[in-house]
């Protein structure tokens, strides 16, 4: 074993087995650099041990306990409330009520469907064989509507000219 391996053992001295400690101790006794490192590490570990006895304490332990218990009780209340709802929904009465409601809804849907089927279909216009479609009536109505549009256009043009003239005279 070389010094770098013993170095690791020095840092982990507390975790070594009895035999490992004996071997390490023998090396430290003969190696100057490892002996110096061991002295330094053991001194520092002693300092850390000294610090381990220093423990931070809560400023107000009662307040913290109350804070913890408040949140625990709040959670408990929430759980018991949801438990209450769950037990209510799980009761036999509610189950029967929901089943009855479902049956009623299905029945209602069925009745609605039936009534929708009774709607009269749009009467079909039967066209006799050999009938020729007369387009003159369609064109007549088209011409009438065009004439009407033109008349309204000329009226609006007349009223616009008149108002323009009025503005000029004013």
């Amino acid at each position: 074993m070389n010094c770098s391996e013993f170095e690791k053992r020095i840092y982990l001295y507390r975790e070594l087995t009895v035999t490992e400690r004996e071997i390490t101790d023998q090396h430290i006794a003969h190696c100057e650099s490892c002996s110096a490192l061991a002295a330094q590490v053991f001194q520092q570990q002693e300092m850390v041990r000294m610090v381990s006895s220093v423990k931070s304490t809560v400023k107000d332990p009662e307040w913290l306990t109350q804070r913890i218990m408040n949140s625990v009780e709040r959670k408990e209340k929430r759980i018991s409330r949801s438990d209450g709802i769950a037990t209510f929904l799980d009761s036999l009465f509610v189950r029967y009520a929901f089943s009855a409601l479902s049956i009623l809804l299905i029945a209602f849907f069925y009745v609605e469907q039936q009534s929708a089927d009774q709607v009269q279909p749009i009467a079909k216009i039967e066209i006799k064989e050999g009938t020729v479609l007369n387009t003159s009536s369609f064109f007549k109505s088209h011409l009438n509507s065009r004439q009407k549009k033109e008349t309204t256009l000329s009226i609006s043009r007349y009223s616009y000219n008149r108002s323009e003239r009025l503005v000029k005279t004013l």
Partner: protein
Amino acid sequence: MAEQVPLEMITRAIQGDTDAFRDIVNHHQAFAYAVSYRFLGNAEDAEDVVQEGFIRLWKNLHNYKPEVKLTTWLYRILVNLCLDVLKSSQRKQQRNSREVKEEGALAHYSATDDDVRAQELHELIQEAASELSPNQKAVFILRDLEDLTVEEVCSILSMSAGNVKSNLYYARQQMSEKLKKYYQTTDKITTI
């Protein structure tokens, strides 16, 4: 590690007795806070973690197995919460290390608050620990500061013994470097 609470008290708490749980909280609160403070170096965060830790304990108390110590279980919950806080934000971690420096004088100590040197060392080690990786920090705190056995550390952190020792080696090495630097600059090593 804190003393165990009677099993009868735990059984009553499992049955929903909040008064029994209050006794458990009173019994373990000091150790829970001390551990959380060592991890986070900040009173406010430590209190939040303690609160959340006890809430988790209450919620999962029905899973309690008497063969596992309640303190080991609580340690596991607290360490996980602390590691979550540490991992969640690097910025927060930096802020904490600054606060450790600032709050050092305000921190409350139990029996040895008159020991200025111990207090100074405490702050120094807390600051040095804040620079370790979360796993190294957890191993260092549990093994060297909380003085738990390697087996307990393995159980709390769900780590193998080899992994624990490896993290411990690097943590102690870094800690040693920090302490060496500090005592070289302040020339205090002779006074220890």
